[in-house]
């Protein structure tokens, strides 16, 4: 009996997973990295818990949320199939035309909707917005784990671990996968990394044919997912095509390459063209056409490999070139070839963007200044460069891909701040290769023979283990200085500064975070709660487009514009409303049946020159910092406004310079008469005046310029107007956010205008 029991237990013993000590350490390190990645990304929840809800960050994620919500409520394809297949028009946004939600990439909302349905079915009771908020945290962590495998394939487990760690801490990637950032990049990077992992495995000649086929299918699925998730898929498609083309130039053509390429792109484009919103026209877009060109080239090379006569080879080559060029020209001339998507071409040529204030007004669309790139890379640029060096010295297929990925993504990142996120994986891989390349000889020395000969002008004959240890320690210290105590961030870890900040609405759009904001800022939350409780869903509120998503989704009212920026004419009109004098603004507001108008201002108190009293003045984080874009964008439609009779040629403007000048003495903006009669000046000025009256008088605070009550706009609800200077100092470091909602006084307007 005892023997049987022992034997029985031995059977269980054989179930133990057999693994090496090194693997345990490696996977423990990976788990730790993933834990770090997750923990850092979830940090903003610290400001969400006190509000009792978890919201989304910034603005665009609300668009994705409304799609997800629709899919959860009415079915996965409902946004595309409603209205007899014309798609869902959301009339709560972009009133009166509404926002055509069927013109959206489906992968992100569909994935979220499916996962949400699964967890709901499992009995997990969680709010959809909270789920969407946590979604990027989970997928950001998954991206880090995929990065480990990509790095491992590139050069071993150590490179995989370093690359995963760097990606977990990369500022641009962190920002876009932190709590609440429920936007396309989240799945885009997952798709990008999964594609790289599987495509490079698929073309690996050392793998079996079966494995290659499986990875080709996987790569195709990943690419299709990426195409359905993020508009930047053009980048990956063209990068892969360029990579294969370079392999051909390097005389590395193989049947495996042809097989993997055709299977991957065939499957990817087959799935992609069946994705809602992406039609067959995708195949003829300028960025996707090269896929066919390279495919023909691969086919040609396959034919030329065979033992055929030279004459036939020349004929085939000529015919293929004629087919490619002829087909290209024919498609172009017949109008079948679509232009490269607007944003993609503006990335290739960033100077196109500078001519469009609508695009340039978005900070993340601007050309990356060197400071953005330095903040992203820090001193890691040293390892990036050494990584490039080691990669160039060993141009394997994977390394050729990495070089192309690094070079092209760096160009894209330099072209547009937002695309630093695409550069992040390339940087992480190259930096990891650089570090390991430098450390390898010293590490080997530590493990092996105590002394190794090296050459030097000083004829150093031997290098000791301790010396190697010091080199490794120095590299470690450089990494510490780069990640943990970054000088460019005042010694605070870069990721800490990036991640430990509340989501925008919970910070009332103030640049506060970390220890500077003890509790969530209530002003915007109060305003959105007020509109949700006191206004109808159909009530039209006019506001600058930054606040559109918040007002329509969190505040449950109807808005005229938001970050979707689908109708530039409407944005010009809103700019006109704010910059025109009240009477002209009312004429435009009448067109939109608006009942309320909202402005947001941020204030700060300063001592007067003689120190006897205090002055409250605008800081620039609200509309007082955005009105110049309102002037520029509406100024573009100057002729239209004149022709349609909204304003006279004398009173019309071109840009902000028509509303004032920067004072040579103080450097501050000085409004002229046109500026002082603009609607935005009055709305902001009166909000400031009201704050001074309600909360400033007791503390001897007066406004820097006296605000006058607007003629046609009545104070309805001003959130933040009761925040006294002491509380503002304690809670927001002296900043005072005021969200001012005015009711439009149509009676007064009609009475005045007859």
């Amino acid at each position, binding site marked *: 009996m005892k023997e049987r029991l022992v034997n029985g237990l031995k059977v269980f013993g054989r179930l133990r997973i057999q693994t090496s000590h090194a693997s345990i350490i490696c996977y423990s390190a990976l788990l730790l990295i993933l834990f770090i990645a997750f923990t850092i990304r979830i940090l903003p929840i610290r400001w969400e818990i006190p509000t009792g809800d978890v919201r989304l960050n910034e603005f665009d994620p609300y668009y994705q949320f409304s799609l997800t919500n629709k899919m959860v409520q009415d079915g996965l394809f409902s946004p595309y199939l409603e209205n007899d297949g014309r798609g869902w028009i959301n009339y709560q946004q972009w009133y009166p035309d509404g926002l055509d939600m069927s013109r959206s990439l489906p992968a992100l909302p569909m994935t979220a909707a499916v996962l949400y349905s699964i967890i709901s079915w499992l009995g997990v009771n969680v709010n959809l917005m909270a789920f969407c908020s946590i979604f990027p945290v989970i997928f950001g962590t998954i991206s880090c784990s995929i990065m480990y495998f990509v790095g491992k394939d590139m050069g071993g487990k150590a490179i995989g671990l370093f690359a995963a760690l760097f990606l977990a801490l990369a500022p641009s990637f962190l920002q876009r996968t932190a709590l609440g950032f429920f936007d396309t990049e989240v799945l885009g990077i997952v798709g990008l990394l999964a594609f790289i992992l599987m495509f490079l495995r698929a073309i690996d000649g050392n793998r079996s044919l079966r494995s290659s086929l499986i990875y080709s299918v996987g790569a195709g699925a990943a690419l299709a997912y990426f195409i359905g998730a993020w508009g930047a898929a053009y980048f990956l498609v063209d990068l892969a095509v360029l990579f294969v083309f370079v392999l051909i130039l390097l005389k590395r053509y193989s049947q495996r390459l042809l097989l993997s390429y055709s299977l991957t792109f065939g499957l990817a484009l087959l799935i992609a063209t069946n994705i809602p919103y992406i039609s067959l026209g995708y195949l003829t877009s300028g960025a996707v056409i090269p896929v066919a060109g390279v495919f023909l080239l691969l086919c040609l090379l396959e034919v030329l490999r065979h033992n055929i006569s030279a004459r036939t080879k020349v004929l085939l080559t000529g015919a293929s070139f004629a087919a490619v060029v002829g087909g290209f020209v024919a498609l172009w001339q017949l109008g079948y070839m679509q232009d490269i998507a607007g944003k993609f071409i503006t990335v290739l040529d960033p100077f196109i963007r500078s001519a469009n204030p609508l695009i340039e007004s978005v900070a993340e669309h601007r050309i990356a200044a060197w400071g953005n790139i330095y903040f992203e890379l820090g001193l890691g640029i040293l390892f990036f460069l050494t990584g490039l060096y080691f990669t160039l010295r060993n141009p394997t297929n994977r390394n050729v891909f990495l070089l192309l990925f690094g070079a092209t993504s760096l160009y894209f990142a330099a072209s547009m701040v937002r695309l630093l996120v695409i550069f992040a994986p390339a940087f992480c891989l190259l930096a990891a290769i650089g570090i390991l390349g430098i450390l390898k000889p010293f590490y080997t020395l530590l493990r092996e023979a105590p002394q190794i000969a090296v050459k030097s002008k000083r004829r150093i004959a031997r290098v000791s283990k301790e010396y190697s240890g010091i080199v490794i320690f120095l590299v470690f210290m450089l990494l510490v200085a780069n990640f943990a105590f970054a000088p460019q961030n005042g*010694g605070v870890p870069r990721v800490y500064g990036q991640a430990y900040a509340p989501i925008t609405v919970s910070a009332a759009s103030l640049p506060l975070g970390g220890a500077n904001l003890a509790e969530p800022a209530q002003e915007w939350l109060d305003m959105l709660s007020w509109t949700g409780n006191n206004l109808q869903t159909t009530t039209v509120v006019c506001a600058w487009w930054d606040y559109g998503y918040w007002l329509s989704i969190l505040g449950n009212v109807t808005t005229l514009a938001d970050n979707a920026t689908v109708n530039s004419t409407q944005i010009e009109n809103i700019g006109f409303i704010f910059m025109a004098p009240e009477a002209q603004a009312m004429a435009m507001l009448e067109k939109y049946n608006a009942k309320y108008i909202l402005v947001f201002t941020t204030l700060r108190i300063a001592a007067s020159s003689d120190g006897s009293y205090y002055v409250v003045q605008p800081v620039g984080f609200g509309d007082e910092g955005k009105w110049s874009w309102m002037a520029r964008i509406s100024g573009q439609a100057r002729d239209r406004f004149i022709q349609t009779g909204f304003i006279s040629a004398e009173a019309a403007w071109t840009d902000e310079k028509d509303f004032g000048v920067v004072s040579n003495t103080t450097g501050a903006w000085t409004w002229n008469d046109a500026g002082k009669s603009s609607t935005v000046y009055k709305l902001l000025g009166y909000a400031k005046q009201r704050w001074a009256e309600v909360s400033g008088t007791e503390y001897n605070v007066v406004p820097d310029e006296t605000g006058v009550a607007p003629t046609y706009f009545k104070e309805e609800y001003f959130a933040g107007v009761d925040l006294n200077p002491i509380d503002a100092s304690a809670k927001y470091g002296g900043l005072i956010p005021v969200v001012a909602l005015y009711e439009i006084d149509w009676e007064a307007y009609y009475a005045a205008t007859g």
Partner: protein
Amino acid sequence: MFPKVPDQHKTGKPLVPNGLGVIYVLFTTVYLFLIYFSRIAPASNGVSAPLTLAVCILFGGFMGLLDDWMDLKWRYKAFMPLIAALPLIYLAIENGLRTSISLPLIGMIEFGDAYYFLVIPLIVMIVTNTVNQLGGLNGLESLCPAIILMGLMALSPSHLILMLGPLIFWLILAGVNLQGKIFVGNSGSFAIGMNVAAFAVITDLKLPLLISIVPYVVNSSLILLTIFFAKKRASVSFDGKKLVSDHRRSLVTLITYHRPLTERQVVAIISLLVAFFTLIAVITSML
């Protein structure tokens, strides 16, 4: 523990531990991190001066170690310090450091943005490489930078604390180096060169730095011009007691040209020369 190299200017060429500059790098890094943690020098406009300095010195030390290990080619050594210029450029921009240099007789030269993107990288590149080039004699590569550093510290009492500990430590190393018991190696000379350049940029002492490094610039100019035009390298002969040379292709060979001098004498002359220019730099700045 450290690799040993023969001391070429001693009878019997005894083996001497090399690369002890790396201890200076580690000490200075720890010191500057402590300064940062103790908040003696708080971050200004979001940028920490001690950490910026620490990163630059770490990078200098790392570059020196690579040179000791791989014998880096000059084309790499010349441009690698540009990477370390990045934190300094960031600090200069964020703190709005002056973008002009006042030169005696010439007056004020305003560089504008070129100061950040051209002048600072040039300062870092030139100082680091010229300091590295003036060496090869016991005490030479440690004493001279210490003199310049003392001059800069005297002109910037508010930043004195940043370099006080490292300077004392460096002087101890210099004392041992002078006796021929250790060499600081490329890790030491690159780190101290980077240190001098970074400290001058952080403290906004460009003119004093430029005057102080005149002997270094002369030495490097002689070496490079001879290499480029005559394709010859400087070398000094050692007869067992004294150094002598039959050409003038560097500062050392210029001083020992047909004039036999002991190693100590040469080091003393060059150190005095550096001290003289540093004194001029200090006086010029105080005027």
